[in-house]
């Protein structure tokens, strides 16, 4: 508080707006809440539409016929918002109500620490961004387990247990994959990683394809895409942890995987797809909001959209794995791949090739 007051006294109003605006822009508008919401609507619609096209049919259409039913998710959201909210008799009420909110909060938190432009360093402490993002990404499943525990439903419980097992088995591959990129870029600052890629002119996916592949697999697993849609497997455990949730809380629960998908995809495009390349802002432009945040951010966002579209398309191709098979992959092949990725990075760094 004192800091802000002293700041107010020391700087003029214009420079104060310049100081306060970018963080608000970053959190509220882009890549924050508003874009997340729009992305959510678009992605859920795209998933249904892409699957429908693969399956020789139309998918959502009549809700807005001219635009291919693109506002279908809005209709679903309105319906969910005004439906009766049921708390099951056996549920632990406090946990039952707070879990979806916390889930949403922790799902959105990693977005703050993923830089989408060079200007980002001016707003937030970016020096340790990767170190902060990884635990934040891993923390959300704890609240998924809380959902299942609070619901007092056997299918929720089984689904939560599945989620717990899977999270544990895919943590090491995720950390190894990011570690190999940290080794390669020589920094835990993601902005430095992007500068590294732009400077060498080679994206991370070419430098270390093993780590990229591994990250992709962990991304599919964590966001519950096919073939790893195991904790919500409909024909086995109904809706998994979300079985008892109705109305808006179910909407929150179901949108969480897409938010996770969004933060993972942003991270993927920053780490492996060259970030805001080909837009390379000059030093002067990089200190401005438009040149340093919005334009590079748009590029990252488009790259992330392509990654997300690829991942939602997997639904149309693959059935789901059994849980023990998925766990075996996580503890066995994925860990070895992770070590291979680290070894590759070390070899590249030591040999001085990059």
């Amino acid at each position, binding site marked *: 508080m004192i800091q802000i007051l002293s700041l107010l006294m020391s700087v003029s109003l214009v420079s104060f707006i310049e100081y306060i605006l970018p963080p608000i822009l970053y959190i509220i508008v882009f890549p924050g809440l508003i874009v997340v919401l729009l992305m959510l609507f678009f992605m859920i619609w795209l998933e249904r539409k892409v699957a429908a096209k693969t*399956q*020789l049919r139309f998918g959502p259409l009549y809700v807005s016929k001219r635009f291919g039913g693109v506002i279908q998710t809005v209709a679903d959201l309105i319906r969910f918002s005004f439906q009766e909210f049921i708390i099951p008799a056996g549920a632990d009420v406090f946990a039952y109500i707070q879990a979806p909110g916390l889930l949403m909060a922790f799902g959105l938190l990693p977005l703050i620490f993923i830089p989408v432009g060079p200007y980002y360093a001016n707003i937030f402490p970016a020096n340790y961004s990767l170190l902060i993002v990884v635990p934040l990404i891993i923390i959300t499943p704890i609240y998924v387990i809380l959902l299942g525990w609070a619901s007092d439903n056997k299918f929720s*419980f089984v689904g939560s247990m599945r989620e717990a097992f899977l999270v544990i088995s895919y943590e090491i591959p995720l950390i190894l994959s990011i570690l190999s990129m940290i080794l390669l870029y020589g920094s835990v600052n993601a902005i430095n990683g992007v500068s590294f890629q732009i400077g060498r002119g080679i994206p991370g996916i070419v430098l270390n394809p093993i780590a990229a592949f591994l990250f992709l697999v962990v991304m599919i697993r964590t966001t519950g895409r096919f073939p790893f849609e*195991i904790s919500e497997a409909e*024909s086995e455990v109904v809706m998994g942890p979300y079985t008892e949730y109705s109305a808006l809380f179910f909407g929150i629960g179901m949108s969480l995987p897409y938010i996770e998908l969004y933060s993972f995809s942003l991270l993927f495009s920053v780490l492996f797809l060259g970030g805001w390349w080909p837009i390379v802002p000059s030093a002067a432009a990089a200190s401005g909001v438009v040149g340093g945040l919005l334009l590079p951010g748009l590029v990252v966002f488009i790259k992330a959209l392509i990654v997300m579209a690829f991942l939602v398309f997997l639904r149309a191709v*693959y*059935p*789901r*794995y059994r*849980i023990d098979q998925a766990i075996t992959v996580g503890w066995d092949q994925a860990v070895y791949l992770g070590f291979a990725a680290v070894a590759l990075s070390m070899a590249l760094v030591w040999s001085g090739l990059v």
Partner: protein
Amino acid sequence: MSAPQDRTATANLTYDELAGLKADRELVLLIGPAHPGSGHMKIKVWMDGDIIQRVDPDIGFVHRTTEKLSENRLYIKAIPIVERVMLPDTINANLAYVIALERLLGIEPTPRAQYLRTLTSEINRITSHLYGIGLYGIFLGSSTVYMWAFADREPLIDLIEEISGARITYSYIIPGGVRWDLPAGFKERAETVLQYMEARLKDYGKIWVRNPVVMDRTEGVGVVSKSDAIRLGITGPNLRASGVDYDTRRAKPYAAYPNLDFEVPTFSEGDCYARLLQRVEEIEQSIRIIRQVLKDIPDGRIISDDIYSKMNPLQKRMYEMKHRVMFPAYMASMRPAAGRSTASVEAGRGEIFFYLVSNGDKVPFRFRWVTPSFLNLPFFTHVMVGQHLADLPAIYGSSDYFPPEADR
């Protein structure tokens, strides 16, 4: 896990007592009937961790008492009833009942009617197998296969609709023959559909049958050995996937099958993947049979002389004009001589068994039928034990169990 009372109840127990509590490890799941992976039945599953210890299928949710109803209705009125029980597979239910009835009546259908029966039965077998493959897709989480299978059922349903005039419930086969002749140009249209089906089977191979995830999920899961299959009385494609070379079309010949050249595919593995391949192979064989039937179909009447002579002049004229059998009044007042008969027919899911008893009345004295899904019930009690919970839908889907058919 659940309510606070439970925790206080176990709070006074010692560690040993807690460790000895089987409830710690054991979980009883009630799956169904409003569960996405259950169909019209309740499956009670006792689990130790993730491993299924015991399964008790609670069926009868669609028990519509067809035997009792048929024993109180005219003979001809049992045809719609048996059809509605086996909705993906109506022609075969219809055929099995009519064969049993014809044996009671002592009527022999004409050769052309026999070929038409075979034709519709095989088209229906393909739609039934596609239905099974599609639902298997849902059980394993692939909605694409479900949609594709239901899309590819439609041209075949159109074909049979063209012959019989109905979409699902045809009531096409009547004692002495069939009700409609082939429409003009049917053979060419059927050939188009068959070629389309063959092309689609290759697509299924790409996305479903040789999909690595499907193979991981199904190979070595739910294995039924040859001796077990015989001991448990499993029937149909599931039996043949376990290596038993038995097909009712061969063993108890009916319709035009003795004149046709076809193979009975078998697999020796007996796992879910073999049962999936078995259905795909049987679709190929059915396509082969349909081609032969369309090539070899003899000319002549589609209704036997016994029934034709009982038609009135208007009906006879209608038959000559449109090659269509209007129901003769005789059908409504059939009184077979006292006696008994049995009939077996190979339906899409296995052998339908009929046992009819007449005491000379206008309604059957005893109407007994056993459907293939009912005979496949041991899949729940025997095959699922020792598998993972996630294998339950995999085995269920591979057995192509259809609850309304089992409950009758």
